[in-house]
């Protein structure tokens, strides 16, 4: 079998903030880099969809001199419900400001005070105002990084490349295999080190505020290659995403802007009762309050609650100015694509998947448990713990992206890579099998839809053993009955169905693992809420759930949380 092969020192999978930072820092470390992006670098991915908030403890250079990396460290640890590995949180908090200054040097504009200090907003879960403000939000950031990558010698960007297998040889990572949409065929990339930066698995659910391609491909790929995955039950939900009308379904409207210092609006149930106390709750608590109203039958016609600023004591002009100032793009998008001005009219909102806190297990150098394989940003884990606070998604992406790139380059300098041809052929055959005609054919997107429906039903914000077991059975059924029937047309370049079939295959694997982790965590903490175990159980569950592939089967275990500085109350 003749498979087109390209060669590089470091392969980076994913063209969002984590991947772009990894590419820049790996190149700085002397490596040649190939960045493999599923869509278009800088435009696709969660970074370009993100808002403007990045946590950075600038202290005297920002809004409050009392803030520091130490205060930020404590905020992340406690709001993560003591499940974040502190060796990684140290890296994040210590390097956040430097990465913001990097971004500034790449041409990104931040809002500043007149005396040059960083403007920072206070969000729930931050002791002092800590979120710096990126003009034109995450999109400006990913484009600034993409342009910096263009200027960086030795970084080659390959767009429209859907990675689907990590290649190994004798227990080491030696590259990546993916569907090159432009070529219309699988292409192998031989690499001495590989960085996973594919973002989250949020699009495995049927209601998300992330783009549809965030299917968590890293998880299935890393698992198949033999790396440890960790805490996959922790999918963070965001409480207030638009459910209706369909044209703007999934758009974020910030609940944080309902705070007294902003619009002073609230969420209302169908009986007209206000839902939030003030000051506003942090995300996991907010989510549960909203979900509870909907479950108890006090929701809106399309299964949400009302996001309503019309009853605020503040004037419409004042409120409009806040949205135009803070989230102008989202505000205008809802006006344009749905014809609704949210200052004038309440919107139906509900919890949607927002961020993956679990993921590929890493240490403070972003090394996974598989040699030569690194992970950064949303797909890596676990430093957010059970609950990510506002401004920590982008912050983890930029800090860990750079860290992964730096260490991957160091590793690549000492190693060589040789592909295992049998393994390459195995995966290429697997991908090509979708092109073969089948009896009672099914389409690639049907596979994804079935997984999404299963996750939406059984991996919802509130879970139970019975539901999760049903979900597991459903995943097994899809794998046995639907997957073998998936057929895609042979249309050459940019074969959307083929990419979807491969994504669906990976999603099936990841969904099974996520449900497995959720089943085993018999307590409630952060964004994992078990109806049958409603209490937080610090005695038994201050630990991570680990899953890996062992002798062809899922093998679950636990490992302690790494505490370097702050122990949970009551733990010695």
């Amino acid at each position, binding site marked *: 079998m003749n498979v087109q092969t*390209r060669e*590089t020192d470091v392969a980076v999978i994913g063209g969002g903030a984590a991947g772009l930072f990894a590419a820049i820092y790996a190149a700085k470390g002397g490596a040649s880099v*190939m960045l493999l992006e599923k*869509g*278009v*670098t800088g*435009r*696709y991915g969660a970074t*370009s*969809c993100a808002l403007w908030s990045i946590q950075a403890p600038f202290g005297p250079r920002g809004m409050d001199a009392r803030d520091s990396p130490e205060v930020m460290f404590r905020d992340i640890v406690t709001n993560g419900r003591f499940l974040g590995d502190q060796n990684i949180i140290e890296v994040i908090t210590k390097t956040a400001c430097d990465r913001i200054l990097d971004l500034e040097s790449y041409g990104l504009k931040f809002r500043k005070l007149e005396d040059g200090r960083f403007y920072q907003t206070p969000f729930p879960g931050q002791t002092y105002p800590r979120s710096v403000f990126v003009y*034109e*939000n995450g*999109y400006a950031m990913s484009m600034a990084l993409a342009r910096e*990558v*263009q200027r*960086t*010698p*030795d*970084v*080659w*960007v*390959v*767009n*429209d490349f859907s990675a689907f297998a990590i290649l190994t040889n004798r227990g080491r990572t030696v590259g990546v295999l993916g569907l090159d*949409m*432009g070529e219309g065929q699988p292409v192998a990339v031989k690499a001495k080190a590989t960085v996973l930066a594919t973002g989250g698995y949020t699009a495995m659910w049927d209601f998300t*505020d992330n*783009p*549809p*391609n965030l299917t968590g491909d890293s998880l299935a790929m890393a698992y198949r290659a033999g790396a440890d995955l960790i805490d996959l039950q922790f999918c963070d939900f965001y409480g207030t995403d638009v459910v209706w*009308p*369909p*044209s*703007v379904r*999934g*758009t*974020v409207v910030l609940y944080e802007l309902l705070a007294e210092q902003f619009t002073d609006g609230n969420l209302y149930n169908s009986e007209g009762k206000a839902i939030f106390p003030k000051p506003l709750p942090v995300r996991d608590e907010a989510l549960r309050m909203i979900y509870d109203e909907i479950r108890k039958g006090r929701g809106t016609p399309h299964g949400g609650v009302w996001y309503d600023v019309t009853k605020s004591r503040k004037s419409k002009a004042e409120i409009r100015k806040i949205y135009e100032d803070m989230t102008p*793009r*989202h505000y*205008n*998008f809802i006006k*344009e*694509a749905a*014809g609704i001005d949210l200052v004038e009219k309440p919107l139906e909102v509900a919890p949607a998947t927002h961020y993956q806190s679990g993921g590929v297990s890493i240490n403070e150098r972003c090394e996974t448990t598989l040699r030569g394989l690194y992970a950064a940003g949303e797909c890596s884990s676990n430093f957010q713990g059970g609950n990510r606070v506002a401004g920590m998604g982008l912050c983890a992406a930029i800090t860990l992206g750079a860290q992964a790139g730096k260490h991957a380059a160091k590793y690549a300098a000492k190693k060589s890579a040789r592909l295992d041809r049998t393994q390459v052929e195995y995966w290429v055959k697997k991908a090509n099998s979708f092109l073969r005609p089948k009896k009672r054919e099914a*389409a*690639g*997107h049907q596979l994804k839809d079935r997984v999404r429906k299963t996750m939406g039903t059984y991996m919802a914000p509130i879970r139970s053993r019975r539901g999760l077991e049903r979900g597991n059975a459903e995943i097994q059924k899809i794998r046995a009955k639907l997957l073998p029937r998936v057929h*895609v*047309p042979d*249309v*050459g*370049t*940019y*074969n*959307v*169905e083929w990419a979807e079939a491969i994504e669906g295959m990976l999603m099936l694997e990841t969904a099974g693992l996520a449900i497995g982790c959720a089943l085993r965590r018999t307590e409630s903490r952060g964004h994992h809420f078990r109806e049958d175990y409603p209490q937080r159980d610090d005695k038994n569950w201050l630990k991570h759930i680990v899953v890996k592939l062992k002798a062809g089967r899922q093998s679950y275990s636990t490992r302690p949380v790494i505490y370097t500085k702050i122990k949970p109350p009551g733990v010695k």
Partner: protein
Amino acid sequence: MVQKITAKVFRFDPARDPAPYYRIYKLPVEEPTTVLTILKRIHEEKDHTLAYRDHICYKGICVACEARVNGKTVRTCSTLVKPGETVLIEPVTTNPVIRDVVTDLGRTVEREGISFLIRRGALVQIRKPSGSKD
């Protein structure tokens, strides 16, 4: 009330087709529908071979979904078509066509020591659409 949207869609595979052609699809809808949703629904319900970029940033900024709609370059995520209307959907003319309405939004490949942008696919001259609104 269910009405139909009639979409006339540009189809072209530079590697296989001698020339571009148009296909007409009729979709039942109840609400005003975005062009991005129309493309997604054609792909899923009518024709799996249609190539389009399935990406949305929920704020009309990333332009990954950009296309020419009734002769005008727009973001398809925030361009609404009313039930009963006819719409012409074509690729933007500034980038080479990879296939159908998907264009190359910037693609680089390896070359000794530097990264550079190469244009893939073919630049296509789009004739003035008949029945366009502008």
